[in-house]
């Protein structure tokens, strides 16, 4: 059984940044395991720009952004294995993986970082009724065909869901010669970024139909159309509002799910809200020595946020290997009143340096509202926000000084307040 200080599962933006960070903290024995045939993860198919505004202060494409980290990994001499699928991880931090060169790899690590990313919610999980014909793709699968393989999944397209990949694909498919008829969203608001709605739909006159869903799918061999309908406040289709749209392609952009099958094998406790692991201030899961970052933890809006979070995870995994961290009293972080979840869910103030960013998302759109942070029952922060939407990740910075002020505090509550 080969031993490493740190094994990172996943060579996408999260895994790469965590590896670079741990290496910079002096950890030399690192192995990245990547199931695809190249490093970079999903960024490799995100050929649009807009990545890196925070991290590099410039606009990069997905492959450019990931290449910066791939170059660093190679410069720093960090070991990685491609086409390598992790089959098992356990609480003793043993990892079983497979590839065709090494066969079965049996490895052990002092620390593990889970960075497996997320997957798209498929049609089956939505139970959309209708035919099981060809021509129905998740937006990400279509993106891979178009952007990596240069092949079109169809000519006349309807998009269900207004997640960012769906919006991006509306523009991409249009530019590549398809006719995108509409983007249909069940909720009264989009789950994507505002800038994507403007740049990918509005600029191409693609209608965004809110509070609308697909109630039937038609076609025998290949898709020939969908029936859409408006929904009421309970998201039930409104009779009489049905409309048939002829199309040969349906793209689904209806949510991303953190991919935690391996976390489950290692008995890592998962959040019921995000589906990702519950973590403390060091990005450590419920299993000591197993850390996590990126979309496997919670789905991010911007890759820049993944990078920041993964640097933290990499540094903390390094500190854990070196044994330099504090144990002791922790403060619970509670998400309520419109805030769906927080990362982390517990904080030991002795491990946060000068402060910590607590990240979260809201469940619905709030205009002119406040983000409030309570230390026990005292409202310490009251931040005015013009708008809060589910599509964008929010964060609050809690400084060491505030923790010192409330040294007896046992719980921090974060919520949305009208005033």
């Amino acid at each position, binding site marked *: 059984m080969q031993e490493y200080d740190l094994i990172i599962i996943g060579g996408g933006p999260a895994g790469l940044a965590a590896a670079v960070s741990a290496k910079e903290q002096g950890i030399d024995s690192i192995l990245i395991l990547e199931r695809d045939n190249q490093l970079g993860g999903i960024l490799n198919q995100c050929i649009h720009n807009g990545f890196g505004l925070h991290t590099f202060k410039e606009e990069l494409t997905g492959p450019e952004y990931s290449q910066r980290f791939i170059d660093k990994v190679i410069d720093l001499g960090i070991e990685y294995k491609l086409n390598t699928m992790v089959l098992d991880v356990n609480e003793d931090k043993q990892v079983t993986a497979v590839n065709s060169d090494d066969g079965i790899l049996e490895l052990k690590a002092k620390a593990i970082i889970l960075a497996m990313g997320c997957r798209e919610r498929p049609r*089956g999980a939505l139970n959309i009724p209708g035919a099981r014909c060809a021509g129905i793709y998740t937006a990400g699968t279509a993106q891979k065909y178009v952007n990596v393989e240069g092949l079109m999944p169809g000519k006349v397209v309807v998009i269900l869901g207004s997640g960012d990949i769906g919006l991006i694909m509306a523009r991409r498919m249009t530019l590549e*010669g398809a006719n995108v008829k509409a983007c249909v969203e069940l909720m009264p608001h989009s789950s994507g970024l505002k800038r994507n709605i403007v740049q990918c739909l509005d600029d191409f006159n693609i209608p965004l139909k809110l509070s609308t869903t697909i109630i039937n799918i038609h076609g025998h*061999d*290949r898709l020939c159309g969908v029936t859409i309908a408006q929904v009421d406040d309970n998201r039930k289709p409104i009779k009489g509002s049905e409309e048939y749209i002829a199309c040969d392609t349906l793209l689904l952009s209806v949510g991303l799910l953190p991919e935690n099958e391996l976390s489950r094998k290692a008995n890592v406790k998962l959040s019921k809200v995000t589906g990702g692991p519950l973590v403390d201030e060091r990005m450590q899961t419920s299993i000591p020595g197993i850390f996590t970052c990126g979309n496997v933890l919670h789905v991010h809006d911007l890759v820049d946020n993944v990078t920041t979070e993964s640097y933290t995870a990499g540094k903390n995994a390094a500190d854990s290997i070196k044994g330099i961290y504090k144990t002791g009293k922790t403060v619970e972080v509670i998400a309520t009143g419109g805030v769906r979840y927080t990362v982390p869910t517990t904080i030991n103030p002795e491990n946060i340096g000068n402060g910590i960013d607590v990240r979260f998302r809201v469940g619905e759109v709030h205009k002119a509202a406040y983000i409030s942070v309570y230390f026990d029952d005292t409202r310490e922060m009251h931040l005015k926000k013009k708008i809060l939407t589910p599509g964008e990740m929010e964060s609050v910075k809690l400084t060491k000084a505030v923790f010192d002020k409330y040294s007896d505090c046992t719980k921090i509550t974060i919520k949305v307040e009208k005033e």
Partner: protein
Amino acid sequence: MYDVTIVGAGVIGCSIARELSKYNLNTCVIERSSDVASGTTKANSAIVHAGHDAKPGSMKGKLNAKGNAMFMDLSKELDFPFKRNGSLVLCFHKENMIDLNHLLKQGEENGVPDLVILSGDQVREMEPNVTDNCVGALYAPTGGIVCPYEMTIALAENANNNGVEFKFETEVKNIEKSSDHYVIKTNKDDIETKMIINAAGLFSGDINNMVSKNKINITPRRGEYVLFDRTIGDLIKKTIFQLPTKLGKGVLVTPTVDGNLLIGPNAIDLDDKSNLDTTREGIDDIVLKAQMSIQMPFPMNMVITSFSGNRSASDTDDFIIEEAKGAKNFINVAGIASPGLSSAPSIATMVVDIVTEKLVPNKNLNFNPIRKGIRKFREMSNEQRKEIIKEIPEYGTVVCRCETVTEGEIIDSIRRPLGARTLDGVKLRTRAGMGRCQSGFCSTRIVDILSKELNIPRTEVTKSGGNSILLTGKNKQSL
């Protein structure tokens, strides 16, 4: 000239084909789809019924328990998944216990072994997640679960290996009677044959009506199902039926041989035989009914997919297995609705008895009963995995991450006899794409492999034959 032509490559047609391959007969199977198991066989409850439901004396009553008893040997010879997990028919009201007794008597008359009536508490001891409302149940230890399409693929491969020819995408247009044989007109070549076995499932009425004055009417009866993730596959271990009442037949809850949990079906009569749509109302209805059997609420966030299948319901509500009136040497195997899958092995021997009586063939001395399935990486120990990767390096590349299917298995599924030609063909043979992501990640890879193995461009790869193309052209081609 063929001795025997079987119309339909479902579980019935393929069972008969394999049974016929034990004789020196020139046999052919024709199928309108691009693959075996494309109709009712692909989407059903996947249950091997014990045999207590059918009326004694009916075809169903005679053949079900007999077929059930043949499954263990067959699954071993042909290497397909079958498990005798036992079944329970739940009773929810004391006053219906008498009906449970009636079912037991009926089962015994049909030759079902070891039936026993359990109290509600005994049931919950056996299956702790069964509802507290259950007052008793009929327990049938011989009830089983099977993978119907893997079984059919196995039967077809073995039949093919023993000399049976298969013609796909071959649709019967008409059948002409000659002096001592039939000429089957198809969308391709004419087929001359001494005998015809009509195992055309939903279309068996249409095929019969081409030659016989005694018309058969088959109604497609849709059944919808909901499939749950493996995470809750062990909610129950046995197949849980509900005692039929005035209000309906009830809905079953069962583990599948692949470890998922399946609930369904409802029963809706349709006009269109190829309509496999699922409906919101149908899905809601089966979830509501299935919930009656189980104490805890079904975790709807664990649903992987829903699907529907159409059973071939005959007007007599029984199997029709006989020579068609006024059509010598034309044998109907029609109206094979439930328990058709369970009866498939005994239906096959019954049909072969008819054929051998007519044609008096010699035994095929070269018949090899053994068929080996695709070696499944996910079921191997790490030692076995190391061995096979040394031998076949493609077994080291995982293509379908949800179901852990390797490139080696996918290549085997394409290269073996009657191999996969489509994305669905690969899926049925290997499970690639059947997991929780529903092929989101692996479909691009599988299209690549199919394109390479079949030596066709990726734009010609289909989901399931016909016009079900996946890719419409290159980028910017239509600008």
